[in-house]
Structure formats: C-alpha cells, structure tokens
C-alpha cells in the first residue's frame, strides 16, 4: 500500500492560501483582520447564495438614453422608506385613543427632542410621496412604458397608488385635530354610500354606528400595519419585475444593431 505523503504543516497556522494574482496570501493576525469583511460576506454567501441574485439585480444593464425621469420610481420608494422610519419613531410616543391622541401629538411637537421635526418629516413626506408617485405614473404613461411586456407591473403600480392614497387617508385621522376628525367622518360616509354593502363597510371602519372608543386604534392598525405591509410586499414584487423585464428606454431612442453586425460589414466565406 502506497503511502500518501501528507502536506507539510504550514509554519504559520494563520497563513492562508494565496489569492490569484498575488504572491502571498494574507498572513498574520493583521492580515486576517483586513480580510474580515470578505470572510464574513463569503460565510453568508456560502450559506445563502445571495450574491448571484444581487449580481443579477445590480449588474443588469440599463438601456442607453436612460435619463432623470427614470429616477422617479426609486425616489418614491425612498420617500416610502423615510415615511416608514419616521412613522416607527412617531409610534413610540403616539397614543391611539380618542382621549389621549391629540395630547400625545402635542407632546411630540412641544416636548420631545426633535419631535416636531420628525412629525413634520412624516407629514410633508406624505405629500412628497404622493407627488412623486403621480410623476412616476405620468412618466410611465406618456413614455408608453406600461405596454408589453410590462402590463402586470402597471397593474401593481396602480394598486400601490391606491394604497398610498389609503395611507394618506387613514393617516390624517391620527393627529385628531378638527381637520382629521371631520375629514375622516366624510371619508367614512363616502364609503357608506355604496349600495347594500356600503353601510356595513362604514360601520366596519368606525367599529360601530358612531365614531367610538376603538375607531382611532382601528385606523392606527390600518395605517401602520395592514397597508404598509401590503405596500412593502407589492413594492418588492414591482422591483423584481423591473429587474427582470428591465427598465424601458425612452420611446424615441431607436435600436441600432451593433456596427460589426451591420449587413454590409458581415463578410460571408465563399
């Protein structure tokens, strides 16, 4: 039986095999510390294989001619993220009860450090998000970007628009000032004018025949759990489809086949 020669034990147990193109691998404690980031990412990637998807999403090509109009979608998403983060922090101080809601917002505005600033960001962020989503939709419409093969993404986008409007509607009851209260009364009654189911729908929204003790917490749950969850999920699907189908090119850009494939340049062997 032939003996297999074992490789020699490395003199320094901390030295690793050298990287391609480098003479030596990292060695010593400092060398390994420098590689810590790569090692951690490798460790995660070995167990999740996420790098493939990430590479697919990040290094896909964007057609030429892409201009600033194409940033409106990601800007809307960014406004949503800003709303989500400021909203979570507002929830730390807000109290969704009919007797305490207004006072808790007053407390946020007057006493909490940066309270009015964060509240203001959330309040005006909603306007900015609504404007951006409309601009994004206008761009998609006028550039004909909803056509084949992106029909489904348009439908998801309209659903996101409806949900964004639902967010603004359910959100402005929460400060519980005069405008909040009456706008909500009117909004709920608008739902009630649907024949047959309308009266039950408005009663479901109010949790009873009148604005009552649990109406605010109901709107609070809709505003901060139900609709944002659905928005996040649909936004993920919207983005997946964008990455899969590719962003559109501006409609007036004509596709020219690459130079070397033009008919007059291709020589055919006799």
């Amino acid at each position, binding site marked *: 039986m032939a003996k297999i020669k074992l490789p020699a034990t490395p003199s320094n147990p901390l030295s690793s095999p050298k990287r391609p193109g480098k003479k030596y691998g990292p060695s010593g404690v400092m060398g390994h510390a420098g590689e810590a980031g790569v090692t951690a990412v490798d460790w995660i990637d070995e167990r999740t294989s996420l790098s493939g998807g990430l590479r697919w999403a990040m290094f896909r090509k964007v057609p030429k001619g892409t201009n600033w109009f194409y940033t409106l979608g990601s800007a809307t998403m960014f406004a949503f993220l800003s709303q989500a983060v400021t909203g979570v922090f507002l929830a730390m101080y807000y109290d969704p009860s009919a007797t305490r809601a207004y006072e808790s917002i007053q407390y946020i505005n007057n006493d909490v450090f940066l309270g009015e600033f964060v509240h203001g960001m959330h309040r005006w962020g909603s306007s900015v998000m609504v404007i951006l989503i409309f601009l994004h939709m206008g761009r998609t419409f006028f550039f004909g970007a909803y056509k084949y093969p992106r029909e489904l993404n348009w439908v998801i986008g309209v659903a996101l628009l409806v949900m964004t409007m639902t967010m603004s509607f359910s959100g402005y009851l929460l400060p519980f000032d005069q*405008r909040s209260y009456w706008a909500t009364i009117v909004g709920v009654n608008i739902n009630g004018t649907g024949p047959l189911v309308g009266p039950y729908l408005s009663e479901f929204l109010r949790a009873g025949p009148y604005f009552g003790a649990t109406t605010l917490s109901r709107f609070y749950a809709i505003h901060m759990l139900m609709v944002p969850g659905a928005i996040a999920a649909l936004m993920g699907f919207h983005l997946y489809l964008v990455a899969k189908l590719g962003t559109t090119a501006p409609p007036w850009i004509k596709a020219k086949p690459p130079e070397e494939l033009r008919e007059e340049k291709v020589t055919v062997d006799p």
Partner: protein
Amino acid sequence: MNKEQKEQYLRDYGTLKSQGKPFFPYAVAKDSAMAIVVMAVIIAMSIVLGAELGPKADPTSTTYTPRPEWYFFFLFELLRVIKPPALVPLATIGVPTICLILLFLLPFYDRGPERRPERRPIATTAGIFVVCAIGYLTYLGAAAGPPTQIDIPVPANVSSQGPEAVANFEAGSQVVAQSGCAACHKFGENGNSGPGPSLTKIGARLPAQAIQRTLLNPSAPMPSFSALSEESPTQFAQMVGFLAALK
C-alpha cells in the same frame, strides 16, 4: 400588439439594453442623487412648514369648515359640483371607481405597439386632459371658502363716496355672509352656484327697491328676510345696500 410586433420589441429592447450601462453604479448614482434631493425637500418642508396641529377634534362644533388635505381637493370638488341628490353615489363611489378601473385596465385596452407620446395622439390627449382636469378641480377645491365668508373687494364707485359708504358696504357684506346667502348664491369666488342665481353683479340687474322687495317676498325656496328687517332695520338696510352696490 401581435406576436411579430412583440418579438420586434423584444429584439430592439435587447439591442438597446446590450448597448447600455450597468445598473450599478451608473443608475444607482442617479437614483441616490435623486434620493438626496427628495430628502432635502422633505427636511426643508419640515423645518420651514413645521407640523402644525389644528384645534382639537370637536364633534359638537357647528362652525368648523372641514377641508381635506390638498391632494384630495379634486375629489372634494367633485362632490361639490355634482349637485343632484340622486347622483350622490355616482360622485362618491361611481366616478372614482370607474376611473380606477380604467386606470387598472389601461395596458389591456391600449395595446398598440407605438410608444412615442407624439404618435399616440389619443392616449397623450387623454392623459393631458386628465392632468388638466385634476389640476383644475384641485384649484377649485382649494379656492372654495366656507359659505359664511364673502371677500369681494370694495368697488370703485363705493370707495369714491367716502369712508362711510365703504364701512356700510363692509357691514353689509358681513350681514350677507352671516345670513348664509352664499349657501345658495355665488358672490364672485365665494358661495355655491345654485340653487339661487349668481349675485356677483345683482346691482347691475336690479335696483335697490327691487332687491328689497325680493328679500321681503321671495319666491320659494328662498326664505323671507322680513324678520330681519323688523328686528334690526339697519342690518337689513346694509344688506340691501351691499347687494345693490354689486355691479
């Protein structure tokens, strides 16, 4: 789009895409720059405009004039312009639902292969029309004051008669506003158009005596103001004077 057009599109798009640049870092750089602009706008609005809180919700109020957030003004105005009670469900549920369905199904009824806005005249015109309509309704909704407010500037022929005439005109404007005339009549930018006629230029059409007669003995459904003329004749005279001065 038929099968051939679909394949043509995919081929052209593939060519354009292959000549493009990678999403990271080129598009990401643009998106990030835009994100910074968005955040700067939000932060600036928050600092400049603050987070003002109105008076606490008061369901017992009978003087508050409810108005929605600005981006619902077009829906609000839609409810104001659709007057007949029988059409209320149409204004509240019908029109918005139909518009939403049309919006959802857009890619399924607009199936043409053309994408350039100038070669899609119907779609582009419809789009611009919708944008203008929403913009106009938003403007009207924003301008709609409560029916207890009339801001008509003092006309030149009144201000030339001296400060007493101006004071009378303004007092009359107050009386008219508080009497709720604007609930049924239009006064310049204020008030509702109907069921009563516009009173913006009533003084040019009717002399003061005729106005007074109408106020005392109106035709239904307008109420009579004879009680006001008996209880406080000065206020009634100011009311008539104000209306007669609207030319």
